[in-house]
């Protein structure tokens, strides 16, 4: 083993070398860390996936009382054309009765249209009640067959294990008859 100069011999150089050592390995580490980002980010949704991140829905053919399911980002979205009774029922409910208190006005941009993500907030099943004749649960909204969560006509959780109301997707009304989700 060759003798490395140590102690007093290298003493005056120590400070500069230690500083250089720190700078060298730190810069290298920063570079390596920055290099990781493209690898991680490449696993995020690609441009073609993002381009389909919005869905426009024509509301014209949906009759009062009818509910339809559309697919947005691979997920089911329930669009409910609510009857006056359903709106009335949703609005009359006192907030104290709710597990996740939210007024109906905050859940529907236009009272006659309710747009919610059709995935039970409990464990991810798709609740029943969107098709005519299906079980709608005790509050006339949706009923999740997996673990028995009941949702009302505003998609709010009323009974069962689900912790939250049905989630709302971001949406805007492009016109009176077209809604853009996403």
């Amino acid at each position, binding site marked *: *083993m*060759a003798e*490395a100069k140590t102690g007093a011999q290298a003493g005056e150089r120590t400070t500069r070398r230690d500083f250089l050592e720190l700078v*060298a390995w730190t810069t*290298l580490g920063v570079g390596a860390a920055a290099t990781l980002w*493209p*690898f991680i*980010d*490449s*696993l*995020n949704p*690609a*441009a*073609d*996936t993002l381009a389909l991140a919005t869905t426009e829905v024509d509301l014209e053919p949906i009759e009062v009382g009818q509910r339809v399911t559309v697919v947005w980002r691979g997920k089911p979205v329930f669009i409910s054309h609510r009857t006056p009774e359903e709106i009335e029922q949703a609005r009359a409910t006192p907030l104290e009765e709710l597990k996740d208190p939210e007024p109906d006005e905050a859940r529907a941009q236009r009272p006659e249209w309710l747009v919610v993500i059709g995935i039970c907030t409990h464990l991810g099943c798709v609740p029943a009640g969107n098709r005519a004749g299906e079980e709608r649960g005790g509050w006339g909204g949706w009923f999740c067959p997996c673990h028995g969560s009941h949702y009302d006509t505003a998609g709010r959780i009323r009974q069962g294990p689900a912790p939250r109301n049905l989630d709302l997707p971001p949406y805007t009304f492009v016109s009176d008859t077209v809604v853009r989700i996403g």
Partner: protein
Amino acid sequence: MQREFVKAPFKSGVLKWIDDRLPVLSWAYNELVIYPAPRNLNYWWNLGSLAGFMLVVQIVTGVVLAMHYTPNAEMAFDSVERIMRDVNWGWLLRYLHANGASMFFFAVYIHMFRGLYYGSYKAPRELLWMIGVVILLLMMATAFMGYVLPWGQMSYWAAQVITNLFSAIPLVGDTIVTWLWGGFVVGNPTLQRFYALHYLLPFIIFAFVFLHILALHQTGSNNPLGIDLTAKDKIPFHPYYTVKDVFGLCLFLLLYGALVFYAPDALVVPINYEPANPLQTPLHIVPEWYFLPFYAMLRAINFDILWIIPAKLGGVLVMFSSILVLFFLPWLDTSKVRSATFRPLYKWFFWLFVANALMLGYLGAQPPEGWYLTLSQLGTAYYFLFFLVIMPVLGKIERPRPLPESLSEPVLGAAQPQPAK
């Protein structure tokens, strides 16, 4: 040669607890920190670690690309273009991977020439060298199959030509080719098996690299003088060679970066950006640059050898032999001296060999006719002459220059050539 196994000095009790039960940290400490390396290694010795670095780059970029690529004849080309256009940083990953193959071969070829110049394959490092040749063969197979995956015109026709080499085997050739293809032409089954193997082989290469390092650290590194060094001429790997390797890596990355960012398609034939068309062969079939010398030797044999081996089989045999001969190199070279520094004649033949390899590389990209063909034949002849005749004979007749006893004692008078152990 045998070193003592030193336990790593730990500050942390947890690390020590682990190391007492699973001594991987101490192993790394012994092989990567205190490993005694010759103090006189020059920059040619950087290429080994650079090749190792490129293997890691290829595996990492490759695994991520595999998450986006579709191994199907109908969709492969589109999925590559999707990587280039839609996947975040996809263009970067693909260019890194495609040019990474070139940088990997570049490092490995220089690494091999270095071994050839300094006699690093000689006793006691014969197995070290042979494991290296296995790595080269595996790399070639991996690179070839990877080139097929984008399913462009050149991908397709390269697969066609290379798999057809096996049809030269007498009697069973055609059966083997059909088996390789999984059909009657290169097609979707071929692509899918190439994909599976292209993903598998790098990990086998990784295992062989591990063996390569194990064998290296068993015998210790060779050095530019080629003499056996004593402990006082060695220095700990860290920090001396870790820092030197990182500095070399920086220079290497500048070259790699120049390719990836400013000439990403410089080393591929344009026509590979056209989707595979099984009904139309491109006018010029050219392999990747790192195969060109071997391709030139394949095409140089346009005559029947000794009236019994047909030209086609002869070319294939010559091409495969050009690699296989490397396995026998440790015994073909009869010289007692390792380093060409002390071999006045060998030095010349070595540089002629390098020039010859470059010439063959150039000829591999030219049409095999006229002068090109004649030169290819001469080049092929020299390639084999170098290993099969010059190496054995030169060792007997060459008078090597006197070798130094050690690094610290320069050559004084005519010391006897030190016999290689």
